[in-house]
């Protein structure tokens, strides 16, 4: 049952992604709305799928790559919907849904059995730490999508070739503002995730910091975003530079998430 729901949610996201791509390449009114409706449908089923898994597992369903990736995508959709509700930009979905779809698709390729949570990790820290981490990373994901939009729009304005998406992309100031806001949301969440992780590590494994690859890469990600914020506040690094940094930051997030789990041996590995 849960699997079928997951597949249907994936299909909705796929449809939304296709609509988004059409929206990028050819102009047609009403596509943003369609994308939003499809995403909302996918999101409803996706939520249901997570609830079912939660009740089956008895804890947050994020053990195993399948579930963790799906949970990550779910958080991105949450923030996307909130963003759309607040700013009503429309075209932004075309840049976010592909990220969601790719995450969901990769999620669907991982084995789906529910992996029991190892006894060491069974603690209230588990939910707090992971939810903070996922929410923060989801904010960074959207920040990078908005960063890409900023770079596109900036390029149109600089090169003075005002075709393509120029008319439909919002103004630079709004894009920069959203990008900044998302990072100011994501950064404290990531910071708290790391702090709770450190505290939890002490109680579960007996030491605060073990230079586990995941820990190291989280720290690298944290430093990148700390730098983004510092440069903005201290040096006025905004606009293009901030957008590029936010994209680099998200690449680091992705590596922390996938690279560490799949390439390096880590205590954090989901499988």
């Amino acid at each position: 049952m849960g699997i079928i729901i997951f597949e249907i949610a994936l299909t909705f996201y796929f449809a939304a992604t296709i609509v988004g791509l059409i929206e990028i390449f050819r102009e047609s009114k009403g596509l943003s709305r369609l994308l939003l409706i499809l995403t909302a449908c996918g999101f409803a089923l996706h939520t249901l799928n997570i609830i079912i898994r939660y009740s089956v597992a008895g804890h947050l369903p994020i053990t195993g790559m399948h579930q963790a990736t799906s949970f990550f995508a779910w958080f991105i959709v949450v923030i996307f919907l909130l963003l759309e509700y607040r700013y009503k930009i429309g075209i932004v979905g075309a840049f976010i849904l592909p990220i969601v779809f790719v995450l969901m698709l990769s999620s669907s390729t991982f084995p789906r059995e529910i992996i029991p949570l190892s006894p060491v990790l069974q603690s209230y820290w588990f939910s707090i730490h992971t939810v903070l981490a996922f929410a923060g990373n989801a904010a960074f994901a959207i920040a990078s999508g908005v960063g890409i939009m900023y770079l596109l729009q900036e390029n149109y304005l600089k090169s003075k070739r005002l075709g393509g998406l120029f008319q439909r992309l919002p103004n630079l100031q709004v894009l920069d503002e959203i990008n900044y806001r998302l990072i100011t949301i994501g950064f404290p969440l990531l910071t708290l995730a790391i702090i709770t992780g450190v505290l939890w590590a002490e109680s579960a494994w007996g030491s605060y910091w073990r230079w586990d690859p995941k820990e190291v890469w989280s720290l690298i990600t944290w430093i990148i975003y700390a730098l983004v914020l510092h440069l903005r506040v201290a040096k006025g690094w905004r606009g293009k530079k901030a957008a590029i940094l936010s994209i680099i930051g998200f690449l680091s997030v992705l590596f922390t998430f996938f690279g560490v789990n799949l390439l390096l041996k880590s205590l954090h590995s989901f499988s």
Partner: protein
Amino acid sequence: MSILVLGLNHKTANVDIRERLAFNGQKLEEGISGLKNLPVIDEIAILSTCNRVEIYVSAKDSENSMETIKDFLSRFHSINRDKFEKTLYSFSDTDAIRHIFRVAASLDSMIIGEPQILGQLKDTFDFALNKKTTGVILNRLMKKAISTAKRVRTETRIAENAVSISFAAVELAKKIFKELSGKSFMLLGAGEMAELAARHLVNNGVKDVRVANRTYDRGCELAKDFNGRAIRFEDLLQELVSTDIVICSTGASDYVLSKQQMQRIMKERRHKPVFLIDISVPRNIDPDINELDNVYLYNIDDIQEVVDTNLLERKKEAEKAEKIVEGEVEKFIKWMSSLNSVPIIISIRQKAEAVKEEELEKFRHKFPNLDKEKLEAVEHLASAITNKLIHSPSVALRENSEDKELLMIAVKKLYGINGEDDEE
């Protein structure tokens, strides 16, 4: 019953003739009632703008009406017919409907997609409604013209992009800044185009206005105009630190702003975005400044290119608009033909005649020996009764009233006429 358009516009007539034939103020009132009083004209509306004068008419005899209106124009504006006749265009029926729809949708405008014409057409319509010079046909025509124009506006991008230098500057500013109301603006130098662009920016909410001019007094004058303040040329660089939008048009033969200076300014303003519009020739702002992050420098050619691209874009959108117009014209013609009550009137007559003949036949059968004179009297009586009975329904059906369609349905039902003339 046909719809006619008689008019002239910027393409067919020069401003001399347009002026002579315009219906301004009092003239409109006199002209419209003068035309309405002509017996050949049923309904009338007049559109008179600086680019066109058009007369919309619903009349029974189109050829005759055209001539009468031309005579009227000649008389009313005291101008010889041969002076303006060749500048006139005239359309009837489908072409007339299409023309009015195209005018409303701004497809016939000097600048395709410009929005004023729709408002002017609405005024035309309101004025005619007020003066009661229009009826069922023109009322519907005007309403449909307006709704068609609105459809064109929402379904195509015909009016979306700026097609003048000053509007293009505002449009670009809106793609850089979130809202213009909190932004500061500097007019550097003076000049007609620069001032026009400045005016548009102020109209779009820019409040903090500075004017820098080589001659301080001239600067003060301009500053008063824009509700801003004049600054001294020596303070230019310092003022630029807190300026978001600059329109530059000085007569200087060299750059008044170099890349190094701008670099320093950007650092001082902590890289907050700046939009520089340099419309001076020769250019007054070092073009290399555009390479700096968060600085957007447009010269006159750049903006002209934006305008040209937008015009091209509008032409493309106009093709979509023509399709919408064509669809609406078809619908309107369908409606017009549904108003054609002649077949129904004929059916009623035929039905009545048939009943009369049938009853007369029975009568003749009953009294075969009746003399000719009496028989004729009875036939006469029968004709008189049928004619009188169908007279008022026929009159009612011929009239164009608001509820004509309903009336026709009712009549069909009441007289048991099949809808074989219907299109469906």
